[in-house]
């Protein structure tokens, strides 16, 4: 597999998307070991995008409309520091959906943003 630094941005976004879809399934069946592994993989992609000139995490905003709720949620997390209002709206819409357990994750994020526990960077 190509090293992350050499991987084109679009391919990183595609990987981000696939990982988010797998996270959705891991959360659904409450498989934390699998989820936490996927979380670390996604974190590496986010870090690589952030390192690129101009902070290419902003490219993840195109996933705000992705059909998979977990992909939308993680794309919003990844872009909160860049595009707070739009990203927060995505999180709010997931919280409002009431579709558990994803809506609970999103709802907690809103609370943690408001009380300062969560400081997106």
């Amino acid at each position, binding site marked *: 597999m190509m090293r992350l630094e050499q991987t084109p941005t679009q391919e990183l976004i595609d990987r981000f998307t*696939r990982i988010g*879809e*797998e996270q*959705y*399934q891991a*959360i*659904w*069946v*409450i*498989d*934390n070991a699998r*989820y*936490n592994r996927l*979380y*670390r993989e996604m*974190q590496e992609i986010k870090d690589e995008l952030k390192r690129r000139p101009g902070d290419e995490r902003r490219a993840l905003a195109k996933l*705000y*409309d*992705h*059909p*998979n*709720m*977990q992909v*939308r949620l*993680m794309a919003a*997390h990844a872009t909160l520091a860049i595009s707070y209002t739009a990203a927060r709206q995505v999180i709010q819409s997931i919280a*409002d*959906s*009431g*579709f*558990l*357990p*994803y*809506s*609970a*994750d999103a*709802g*907690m*994020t809103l*609370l*943690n*943003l408001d009380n300062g*526990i*969560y400081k997106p960077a």
Partner: protein
Amino acid sequence: MKADAARYLRPGSSLDALFGVEQKYNPNQPRVPAGSSDGGQWTNGASGSAQNDAAQSSGNIDLGNLPSFSDLFALFQIAPQEFDTTDDVQLAGDPPGIGHNGGPSLDPPEMPDERPRLRGDRVGFLKDAATWLGQVGKASVIGQLFLGAANNVEWLDDYQHTIQTYNDPPKTLDELQADVANPEKGYQIHHIMEQTAAERWGLSRSEIDDPSNLVRVPTMKHWEITGWYGRSNEDFGGQSPREYLSDKSASERYRIGLYALRLHGVLKP
């Protein structure tokens, strides 16, 4: 649902009508976001394809249209499964998957007639079943038919209540605490401040099991909340909530514990 499920109905009756009975409109049900080809249609939150046939217009149905119970058993596609003998390895076959992004179909989930060997497969079915029931309504005709069919699957004996209690409406804290005195199938006792972490933090057993820290919650909500505590979380700098709370005060643990109950639909806002 089998594609030819309509064969179980009397001639002239409609499967759509059967599914339309007592269909509940849920304004909070996820929709495919605008901008996609299915924009605005009902979805389960995972897939881009609108899947909720059941959310279409209602029809009237006469219970005389219903088939015999043995046919209903077939209607819900209770199917033998072949099991991998390797633990912790995804079964071969066609898991609800990444291809169409998995999650619960809005059709009745297929019932395995044997207990799935892998925990993830069991939990996946139970979640699918509970979520589907929440969407069609436990008291609807199709919901009752599903539960009747499930009643004849031996391994589900232990999980019938677990499926049904998942959609309990939220209660007040007083109600949840009072329920602790009335253990029932389908519910578990939950510690608002997680007990393992509280022990590590040096709380005594009597403090951990104090009535103020105990609530009775639907079993699968208990699983979900416990799962949330253990997942890496962006909010907490990549730590799990459990890790984040490890050096926090009892009041902070309690506060987060109440939020978790509320956001998972157990505690009334």
